[in-house]
């Protein structure tokens, strides 16, 4: 070794004992300190005091109940005695359907802004003061007796036999008069059918039997409560195997509605001209082609004379050839076609004429005889009651009313401005509001006696086809409220109506007795309405109340959801000449612009104005959330050099409204439209002040409330209120972006794979993972999907998805796991569309071809989100699911960026817990609003305990309702069944459950004979973005448009 490089070796004993102890001592102390600090929090586990017998059978914690809400039977899923999800009732025979308000009803039930108990409002002179039920009930009882004829009950249209009987008894005993007011009543149809057949009952169009449906401004998909969307969807499948082939739907309308968007052919006609056009069609059929039984009737010919096709063509701006062509099509399909009206256009001045013309057309093409208009299945549509309300307002002004009971209506908000209802209210000595909160009308009342939410109290409802359903409570009343029936029966007893007196006595007796130990018979409920109902139903069920036979029958009605009564009498056949008179005096169409006021699909009449889910659901057509806009035709919009959100003043003469402008595709150039149900001022913290209130613009003319065909002028104001649009671009150029499989029926019949062409994905260099056992997949049939959005709300309710509010949508922080994309299809063009196709050129949006695509996590097999998550928070499960583990996610958000479908949602804010610090709320006002929308008691009672409520900083997405998949696995384990394959229906995700038309099919694609496997293999099936090579698990079946005239 070179002496220059000597090296000395360290002695290991250099570190003495004392130093080693000092070092290790400090480390041990640190570790001990760390462990002591993090003891888990002490939690209580509180059992039952006395477990009710019915809970012991261990069918799983969720309990299901049938009840009825807003006139439609509903299946309610409850956990620990509180409802957490509403779904369509599986065995409902009445043909009713659920609206979006049904699916979102939990937000109304658990609404923190509901009145917590009776209040004496003192007409807004001072702050409302709490009072007690005993004071309120007795006071009203005494005033009832005193007022006699001068007492009026103003209530909404929905009622049932028991409620009707109670009110009848009251009015008979105390002279109380009843006035029914419905802001969305359809009087035109009633008037036309009453004149034609003597009874106001309208027969139900059987869209499932019709080969051709012609809509005259019809909105049966926009108002799904009637249940027609299920029938319509039954005939939209192009596969012959599914029944009698695909129906064809032609719609004539002024505004692009959800119904019109699903039409195979759409003709733009102004609302006021629609009646004339319908009459022209009738003229063409009856007078010119002599089709149908009416051809020989001279009176009909005389009534239709002025509506020759060419005359109306010039007047309405619709080419005569279109009218004659459509008439020819109707003639060819007579006996197999039906004409449907009853949309917003029917609330125009020419509404009754339109309905009469539709009636004539149906008679001409023999729709009644062919059973396409079911004579036995006819219902009386809600009466508008415009005349009755006007009369009441006069009486109130004249001082003839001493006591007014308001139940479930809000005339101060939604009555036409000409009635000036608020001023009339001031003239009544005593006003009692039974609404559920201090809304616009209750603020001007003396006493607010809040009625319970329908899910909290007893009652019954008469349904179509002779069905009657019992409305049973699925939760104890959250606040100090009483059921409407309870109140009426109490007051009935006060005016000693024998049935009411008996019910009250029985209820008081039930309270006195000690609670019985759990036994088979239902314990007597302290609710007066329960006893009254059982007495009323005793006659109906044919057993004596209280006998075991009656109890069994009563329980069976509660279990099955409804009771089948005798079918109502058929509607008459002979056409009375009075209907023809409607066609005579057709009011002239307004020369300039006309306004249509329509009930938006989610909020309808605005009763659910404080419902976060409904405000946040993007309108299926306009995609606007949190507010409404004045829809203007694209051509007029561009001529006025407007931009979305520019403020425009709508002047209808008797009232003015300022609203942001919206470029509404498919709108007739001379028509503008405003949604109703918005602009609530006193509905609660969530919905107050959202959107313009269009109700005052409505006119009252000869007893009917006119909401369409109103002459208006619009004027651009300065300023812009940005629209909270939930969608980036509206137009899609399917040549370059084949993202929606669409084709026509003729193309489909030639080539079953038509419409699914896209750029092929290359081969994968990696071998794919094996999925030997169950593998979950979904198929969505775009022909059946009509874009209603119920799946979106069903998913939000099941998976505790927070509400982000208007600021959330504008900031691009929407949280809904599912969205229904609405595209306008840019037609094929020889030279390709260049860049500005995304701005919606006129030739695309004037006559739009609308496409709907429910978009959710595709659970791709080669998921790009899984490769980029560094924290192992998302990966693929053995059964083909893209797992998202909330407690492992740290929030890099790379997975959301890398998802080609952009379906991942990030919790930018803390939606689960309220943040206390006032300083931070001052720095960021959005935090206060988030808390207002999500974390106020009792809103969180709606949460599903089987799904984690995510904290901030965590990514979330559709999990294919993993909680239901795991529940099915546990059931299989408990049942000892093998878990390698699951039969169809073992797992039904919330979206599939909510979908009214069965467009969504989910299941184990590896199971033998699985429906989803058949659909995925169907030539119509297409998986999106094949060129990106992600291999999604969701396949979309082509939307087929029936172009066979």
């Amino acid at each position, binding site marked *: 070794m070179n002496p220059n490089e000597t090296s000395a070796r360290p002695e290991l004993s250099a570190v003495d004992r004392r130093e080693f102890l000092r070092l290790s001592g400090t480390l041990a102390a640190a570790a001990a300190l760390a462990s002591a600090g993090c003891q888990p929090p002490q939690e209580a586990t509180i059992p039952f005091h006395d477990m009710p017998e019915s809970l012991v059978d261990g069918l799983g914690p969720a309990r299901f109940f049938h009840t009825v809400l807003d006139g439609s039977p509903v299946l309610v899923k409850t956990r620990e005695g509180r409802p957490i999800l509403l779904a369509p009732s599986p065995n409902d025979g009445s043909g009713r359907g659920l609206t979006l308000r049904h699916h979102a009803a939990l937000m109304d039930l658990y609404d923190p802004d509901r009145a917590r108990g009776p209040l004496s409002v003192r007409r807004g002179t001072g702050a409302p003061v709490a009072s007690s039920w005993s004071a309120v009930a007795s006071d009203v009882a005494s005033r009832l007796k005193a007022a006699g004829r001068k007492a009026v009950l103003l209530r909404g249209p929905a009622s049932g036999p028991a409620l009707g009987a109670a009110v009848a008894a009251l009015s008979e005993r105390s002279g109380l008069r009843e006035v029914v007011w419905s802001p969305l009543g359809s009087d035109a149809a009633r008037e036309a059918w009453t004149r034609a057949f003597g009874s106001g009952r309208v027969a139900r169009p059987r869209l499932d039997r019709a080969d051709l449906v012609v809509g005259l401004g019809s909105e049966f998909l926009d108002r799904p409560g009637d249940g027609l969307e299920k029938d319509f969807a039954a005939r939209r499948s192009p596969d012959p195997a599914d029944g009698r082939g695909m129906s064809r739907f032609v719609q004539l309308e002024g505004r692009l509605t959800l119904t019109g968007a699903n039409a195979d052919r759409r003709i733009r006609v102004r609302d006021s001209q629609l009646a004339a056009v319908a009459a022209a069609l009738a003229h063409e059929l009856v007078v010119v082609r002599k089709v149908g039984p009416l051809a020989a009737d001279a009176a009909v010919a005389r009534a239709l004379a002025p509506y020759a096709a060419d005359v109306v063509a010039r007047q309405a701006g619709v080419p005569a050839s279109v009218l004659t062509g459509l008439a020819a099509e109707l003639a060819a399909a007579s006996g197999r076609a039906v004409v449907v009206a009853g949309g917003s256009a029917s609330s125009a001045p020419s509404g009754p004429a339109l309905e009469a013309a539709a009636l004539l057309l149906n008679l001409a093409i023999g729709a009644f005889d062919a059973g396409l208009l079911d004579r036995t299945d006819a219902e009386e549509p809600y009466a508008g009651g415009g005349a009755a309300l006007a009369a009441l307002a006069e009486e109130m002004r004249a001082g003839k009313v001493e006591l007014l009971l308001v139940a479930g209506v809000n005339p101060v908000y939604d009555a036409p401005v000409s009635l000036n209802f608020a001023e009339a209210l001031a003239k009544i000595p005593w006003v009692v509001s039974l609404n559920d909160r201090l809304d616009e009308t209750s603020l001007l009342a003396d006493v607010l006696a809040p009625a319970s939410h329908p899910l909290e109290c007893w009652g019954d409802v008469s349904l179509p086809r002779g069905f009657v359903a019992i409305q049973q409570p699925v939760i104890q009343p959250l606040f100090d409220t009483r059921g409407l029936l309870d109140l009426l029966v109490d007051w009935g007893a006060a005016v000693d109506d024998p049935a009411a007196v008996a019910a009250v006595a029985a209820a008081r007796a039930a309270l006195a007795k000690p609670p019985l130990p759990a036994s088979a018979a239902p314990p007597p409920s302290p609710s007066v309405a329960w006893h009254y109902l059982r007495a009323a139903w005793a006659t109906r069920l044919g057993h004596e109340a209280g006998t075991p036979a009656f109890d069994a029958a009563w329980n069976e009605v509660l279990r099955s959801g409804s009771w089948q009564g005798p079918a109502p009498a058929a509607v008459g056949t002979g056409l009375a000449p009075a209907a023809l008179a409607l066609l005579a005096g057709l009011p002239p169409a307004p020369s300039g612009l006309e306004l249509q006021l329509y009930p938006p699909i989610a909020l309808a009449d605005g009763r659910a104005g404080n419902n976060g889910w409904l405000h946040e659901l993007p309108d299926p057509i306009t995609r606007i959330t949190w507010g409404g806009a004045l829809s203007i035709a694209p051509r007029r919009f561009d001529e006025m050099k407007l931009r979305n959100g520019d403020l425009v003043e709508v002047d209808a003469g008797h009232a003015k409204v300022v609203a942001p402008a919206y470029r509404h595709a498919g709108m007739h150039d001379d028509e503008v439209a405003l949604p109703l149900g918005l602009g609530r001022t006193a509905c609660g913290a969530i919905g107050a002040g959202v959107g313009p209130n269009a109700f005052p613009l409505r006119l009252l003319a000869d007893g009917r409330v006119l909401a369409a065909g109103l002459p208006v002028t619009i004027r651009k104001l300065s300023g812009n209120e940005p629209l909270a649009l939930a969608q980036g671009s509206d137009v899609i150029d399917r040549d370059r972006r084949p993202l929606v499989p669409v084709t026509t029926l003729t193309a489909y019949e030639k080539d079953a794979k038509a419409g699914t062409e896209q750029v092929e994905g290359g081969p994968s260099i990696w071998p794919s993972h094996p999925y030997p056992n169950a593998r979950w997949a979904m198929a969505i049939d775009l022909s059946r999907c009509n874009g209603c959005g119920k799946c979106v709300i069903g998913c939000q309710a099941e998976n505790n998805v927070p509400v982000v509010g208007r600021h959330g949508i504008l900031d691009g922080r929407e949280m809904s796991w599912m969205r229904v994309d609405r595209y306008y299809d840019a037609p094929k063009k020889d030279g390709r569309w260049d860049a500005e196709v995304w701005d919606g050129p006129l030739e695309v949006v004037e006559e739009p071809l609308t496409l709907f695509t429910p978009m959710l996590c595709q659970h*791709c097999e*080669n998921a790009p989100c899984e490769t980029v998550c560094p924290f192992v928070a998302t990966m*693929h499960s053995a059964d083909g699911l893209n797992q998202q583990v909330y407690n492992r996610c740290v929030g890099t958000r790379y997975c959301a960026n890398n998802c080609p479908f952009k379906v991942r949602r990030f919790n930018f804010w803390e939606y689960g817990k309220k943040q206390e610090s006032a300083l931070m709320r001052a720095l960021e006002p959005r935090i206060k609003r988030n808390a207002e929308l999500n974390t106020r008691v009792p809103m969180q009672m709606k949460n599903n305990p089987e799904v984690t409520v995510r904290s901030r900083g965590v990514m979330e997405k559709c999990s294919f309702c993993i909680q239901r998949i795991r529940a099915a696995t546990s059931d299989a384990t408990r049942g000892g069944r093998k878990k390698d394959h699951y039969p169809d229906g073992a797992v039904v995700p919330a979206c599939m459950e909510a979908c009214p038309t069965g467009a969504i099919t989910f299941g184990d694609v590896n199971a033998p004979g699985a429906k989803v496997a058949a659909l995925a293999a169907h030539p119509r099936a297409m998986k999106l973005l094949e060129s990106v090579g992600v291999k999604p698990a969701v396949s979309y079946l082509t939307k087929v448009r029936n172009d066979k005239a």
Partner: protein
Amino acid sequence: MMPTSTKGVLGHFREPDEALAAAAKVRDAGWKHFDFLTPFPIHGMEEAMGQRRSWIPIATAVLAACGILFAQGLQNYVMVWDWPMNFGGKPHASWPAFIPITFEAMVFWAALGTALVAIVAGKRDTVPQPPPMVVETGATVDRFVLWISATDPKWNPAEAETFVRSLGAQGVRLVDGGADA
């Protein structure tokens, strides 16, 4: 080696070329325990002082290999052996994904290892008795200092001093142990 209080002799030069020539002379004269303290490295000084090239590169190669093994070992253990999962349909051992970290670990171990080894080697590989720290050699400013340690087998204080002076060094002085240390 007789115990003497003097530790060695110091002398400095003003230019690097002078220092190079002097180093050759000292090496040829047979001195072993000598060292040159310079403000900056002088090219060719190793041969002039009779030392071999530095062994650091070999250490670097070994460290680089360790880095590669560590990275591949870690990644394959985690992704293939301990808990293989299905990330985006890729095989468990998607080797292209392992390359970046393998390269980074190789650079990490090689670079930091080399720096540590260089410092430790530099500290251990000194002349048996380096000039006492408090002696103001000026080597870090502008002088090229020659230091011959008393531990050298040929050590004779007078002879060493005259030899260094004969090389033309400036400021030549004997450095005693206690006194003016």
